[in-house]
């Protein structure tokens, strides 16, 4: 026991008197409580008297100490009495003790078991699938309305998003595609050189980029760059009730907010894919010229000869599909945002993750279709 913190004495009738020598505040209560518990554990008196003669200041932590003390004594069958309370302290205790029956412990959430959590997750997944199907339907209807001239095509908004998703993405798409072409050419050259097949690096890159890598890389970049931006933009609008305001004014949210973004992605995606294909070849060309003793013209000639129109068109068709999917899922996640800043963050992340998953899913579908039709 630290006499600087707490003095004790025993009355003639056996009551234990505790006299704290420090304020009952945030800084002191923890240490004081440890002292008191030690003393009570050793002595177990019939009644405890807490003498406030030295207490001039008390705060919420001090009240928490008193509550903990009351609870401990109640559990151990010890009566508690206070004495010599200063008027200021008494007013504080009276005011805060209007919080009667406050438990010394927060509410504890009931944790579901794994079966419940699995059920909740499956239910949420099914709900999301339903929303995606419903959203796809509303997008399709909005497209039909434009083509039948029932609704105007929003050129200004679409051009704005083409600039944002397309033109502004050119540097990053170029850089990543160039570097990917460089890397692939290096990796391929190591093997092909052994068989004297240096020139086939051009074939590899041309086919890989036009049929698969170009569309895929471009789509992933768009998902991270534009899909997340759409989700954040629409999500913030939802949090600020701007979407509700548009709805109440009579705007069709899909037609007004979503379609310009999807049209922009559908136009910008294939164009960026063409850029990606070209830059990937350029990356390979650098390796071919510097490391494989090829000439630029022989490299490009080889790439030109191996490519079919179907290779280019299938790649562009994939890119078209990927871009629409990325734009749509970004907008959907934005519309699914609930109240609060953390929901905007979650949906933005989900837009990217879902976008990448859907890119691969759609890619698998296209691969099967092209195989069936031998494209």
């Amino acid at each position, binding site marked *: 026991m630290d006499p600087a913190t707490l003095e004790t004495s025993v009355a003639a009738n056996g009551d234990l008197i505790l006299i704290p020598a420090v304020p009952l505040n945030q800084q002191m209560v923890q240490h004081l409580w440890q002292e008191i518990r030690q003393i009570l554990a050793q002595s177990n008196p019939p009644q405890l008297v807490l003498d406030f003669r030295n207490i001039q200041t008390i705060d*919420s932590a001090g009240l928490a100490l008193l509550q903990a003390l009351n609870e401990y004594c109640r559990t151990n069958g010890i009566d508690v009495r206070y004495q010599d309370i200063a008027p200021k302290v008494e007013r504080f205790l009276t005011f805060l003790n209007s919080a009667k029956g406050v438990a*010394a412990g927060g509410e504890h959430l009931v944790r579901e078991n794994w079966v419940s959590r699995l059920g909740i997750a499956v239910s949420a997944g099914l709900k999301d699938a339903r929303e995606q199907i419903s959203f796809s339907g509303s997008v399709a209807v909005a497209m039909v309305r434009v083509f039948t001239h029932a609704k105007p095509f929003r050129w200004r908004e679409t051009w704005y998003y083409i600039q944002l998703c397309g033109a502004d993405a050119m540097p990053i798409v170029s850089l990543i595609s160039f570097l990917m072409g460089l890397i692939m050419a290096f990796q391929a050259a190591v093997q092909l050189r052994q068989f004297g097949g240096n020139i086939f690096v051009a074939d590899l890159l041309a086919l890989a980029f036009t049929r698969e890598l170009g569309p895929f890389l471009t789509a992933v970049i768009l998902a991270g760059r534009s899909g997340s931006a759409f989700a954040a933009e629409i999500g913030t609008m939802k949090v600020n009730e701007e979407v509700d305001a548009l709805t109440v004014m009579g705007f069709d949210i899909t037609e007004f907010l979503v379609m310009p973004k999807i049209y922009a992605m559908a136009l910008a995606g294939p164009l960026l894919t063409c850029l990606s294909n070209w830059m990937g070849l350029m990356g390979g060309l650098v390796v071919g010229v510097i490391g494989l003793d090829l000439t630029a013209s022989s490299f490009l000639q080889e790439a030109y000869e191996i490519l079919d129109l179907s290779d280019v068109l299938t790649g562009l068709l994939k890119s078209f599909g990927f871009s629409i999917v990325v734009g749509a899922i970004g907008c959907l996640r934005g519309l699914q945002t*609930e109240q609060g800043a953390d929901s905007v963050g979650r949906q933005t992340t989900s837009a990217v993750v879902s976008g990448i998953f859907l890119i691969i899913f759609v890619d698998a579908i296209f691969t099967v279709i092209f195989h069936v039709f031998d494209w």
Partner: protein
Amino acid sequence: MGSSMMSAATESATDRPAETAPEIIRVEGLDLGYGGHALLRNMDFSVYAGEIVTVLGGSGCGKSTLLKALVGLLPPIKGRVIVGGEDITDQDPETLMRARRKMGVLFQSGALLGSLTLAENVALPLKEFTGLSREFIDAIVQLKLHLVHLEDYGHYMPAELSGGMRKRAGLARAMALDPEILFFDEPTAGLDPITAAEMDQLILQLNATLGTTMVVVTHELTSIFTISHRSIMLDRERQGIVAIGDPRALRLESSDTLVQAFFKRQAFPLDPSRRSDAR
């Protein structure tokens, strides 16, 4: 809220703390603004321990700007701000930290962290700045939530609550560390009349019982007359303080037409020649 509070429905600010009460906040020659452009100029005033001071004025006059300066979120263009004995003008991190330990702020929308429950929001400063055990922190959290009558809502997320409840939760968090000074940014904005009256009564009770100094930014006339010991009125056009004093006295005695128009809720004359504040 509880019957003890409803029975004090007509309670209003008690006598102003004695003139000898120590200065808690002092502002000297203060210019405030954004991007180097001053909104408010040459402000001088003090707030004394135990006072409730309301900061009022028309929309855009700089009330929230002044509040930001007092809590150290906005460095002044010129002048000094001393809060709780700490000169926070230079925004020195350690000085700001010491000053902020003495203050609590209720922001206009509550500013609760959306990813935490109400109880976790209130516990946050206690966990961060005290060495108290989980048991004590939980008890204090429950106490604070009970003070604002949200004791059954500790496990709720902020998004699940109404605006008024979020404000009350924000107040519970602002009080978590038992600060010497509480700042309020439009505490009754957006509240229904009953909840607004209950908020006013809570402010008065906290002041009367805990002696907490309070600075309340508001333009709600009912609140101003209910809670204020003194008021500081700002004006955008005059770029500074146009009146300081007991709002009841200002309403009756001020010859300034702007002050009169504000307190009597009248349209302010647009013709400068009809205004006593004409330069």
